[in-house]
């Protein structure tokens, strides 16, 4: 484990380079994940998320840089012996002749679990993921969502200190997503370091302490979500719904604000200085009412990770 300030770093990816022939999939990417935190990896398709994850796990070789997990260089031959890592791929796959229980027993034994401890852990993860009824069912008979649950079960079976999840919730129904998120929060609370990639930005916003934004194989940002928001300088907005829009709002002008009409009956007010938000928002509402606008509702809209992501990836920055 490496110390950064007061926090220990469970995962260090430094200047990672991965090429497939002439194509550079990952271009000098640097990411750091603190111990006991949840780190969300986001980026468009082909940005290099899965490649970074597979390099991190030692599943594919890389051409440059270093990957250290829990203080162990993952390019060394016996790295898997020293580090307890759990991994859930995008699509978890098992040998089809196995039952759920057999799959977990084998992977548990290979992770060093034995006897009663192995049995207990298998029972626990099957119960946690609601797979008890599928215990004796063959893997080939399982639905995609159930397979993904089995994948999550094997990933956390041996209680790894670092858990790596590649698009863990992409193929899940809402109830299963809720279950996965709860388990991730519980694991974080118990001290597990979790790195996951996702296209579902609301999930990242909900779970992650820090995020890494990848684009064209480059790590554009790594750090807290609010730092990313500051980088693209998106402002909070006041959204106003008008009951009877006759254009009276056009005469309203409050310094430090900018009023726009995205569609009839709706106004969006940008406030330049976020620190002045409370003062200026009430002034705007007051000015609109004085101008004769009939306000049906108004609401504060803070930029979501999705807005930040779209602003960044979409080329706003």
């Amino acid at each position, binding site marked *: 484990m490496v110390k950064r300030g007061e926090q220990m770093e469970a995962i260090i990816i430094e200047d990672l380079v991965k090429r497939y022939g002439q194509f550079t999939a990952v271009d000098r990417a640097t990411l750091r994940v603190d111990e006991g935190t949840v780190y969300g990896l986001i980026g468009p398709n082909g940005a290099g998320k899965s490649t970074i994850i597979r390099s991190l796990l030692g*599943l594919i070789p890389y051409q440059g840089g270093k990957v250290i997990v829990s203080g162990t260089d993952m390019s060394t031959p*016996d790295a898997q012996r020293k580090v307890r890592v759990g991994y859930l791929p995008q*699509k978890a796959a098992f*040998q089809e002749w196995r039952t759920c229980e057999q799959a977990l027993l084998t992977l548990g034994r*290979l992770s060093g679990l034995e006897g009663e401890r192995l049995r207990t852990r298998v029972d626990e993860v099957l119960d946690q993921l609601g797979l008890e009824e599928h215990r004796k069912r063959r893997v080939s008979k399982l639905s995609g969502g159930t397979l993904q649950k089995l994948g999550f079960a094997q990933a956390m079976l041996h209680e790894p200190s670092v858990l790596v999840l590649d698009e863990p919730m992409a193929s899940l129904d809402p109830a299963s997503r809720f279950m996965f998120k709860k388990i991730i929060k519980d694991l974080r609370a118990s001290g597990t370091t979790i790195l996951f990639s996702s296209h579902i930005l609301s999930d990242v916003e909900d779970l992650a302490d820090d995020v890494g934004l990848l684009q064209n194989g480059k790590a554009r940002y790594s750090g807290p979500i609010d730092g990313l928001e500051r980088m693209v300088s998106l402002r909070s907005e006041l959204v106003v719904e008008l009951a009877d829009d006759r254009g009276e709002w056009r005469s309203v002008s409050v310094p430090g604000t900018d009023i726009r009409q995205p569609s009839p009956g709706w106004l969006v007010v940008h406030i330049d200085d976020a620190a002045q938000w409370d003062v200026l928002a009430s002034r705007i509402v007051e000015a609109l009412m004085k101008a004769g606008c009939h306000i049906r509702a108004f609401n504060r809209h803070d930029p979501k990770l999705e807005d930040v992501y779209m602003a960044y990836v979409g080329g706003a920055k």
Partner: protein
Amino acid sequence: MSLGLLFKDEVNGFYRSKVMIALLVGMPVIAVLMYLLSPDLGGMPLAAFTAVTISSMAGLLASTTLSVSIINERTQGVYDLFLVRPVKRSHLLVAKYLAVVACVVAAAVLALLVASAYDWSVQGTVYLGELGQPTLVVMTMACVSCAVAVLVGTLVRSVLLGVILTIYGGNQLSAVIVLTSLENVVSTETSALIGLVLAAVVLASSVVLFSRKVSS
């Protein structure tokens, strides 16, 4: 530790597969049927006839299954879940290979024993001494064709191409080795030794390639 565990696990999987049912039940049944339906075998005992039949069938079935299984598991990412654990890449392939060869040999021995029991019930004699060489031939062919199947499974991503290469590569190669003894160029034992060495070289090459490719 992982090799023993993986071997036991693979035997368990192959033992339950439809191919093993075909090997255990189908091979003796086909041998008996062909024996009964063949017009003139010159008094050849069933055991000897079965040995000839299974030497061509067992390796073919097993090697094709082996290459298809490796291609599917590799392309679906099954091995990733093993490789993030303290499991050597070489052990994944070697365990699979040994498991399939062991199952084929077990099935072949069983078929020969059943045939010998039939011979004993009909003729009152058993030709166990004459079964040594056919058994060696079966083992050699299975070892060579399964090693080629592992190599094909490691290199190819298309199941169809894998099957074609395994059938034409593996079985033809194993037949060529065995023919050296049938044509009395070398003894059966020498041909078996050549086959085992060749199988070991092909298997070692597969392991090296699998480790270099790294990604399953």
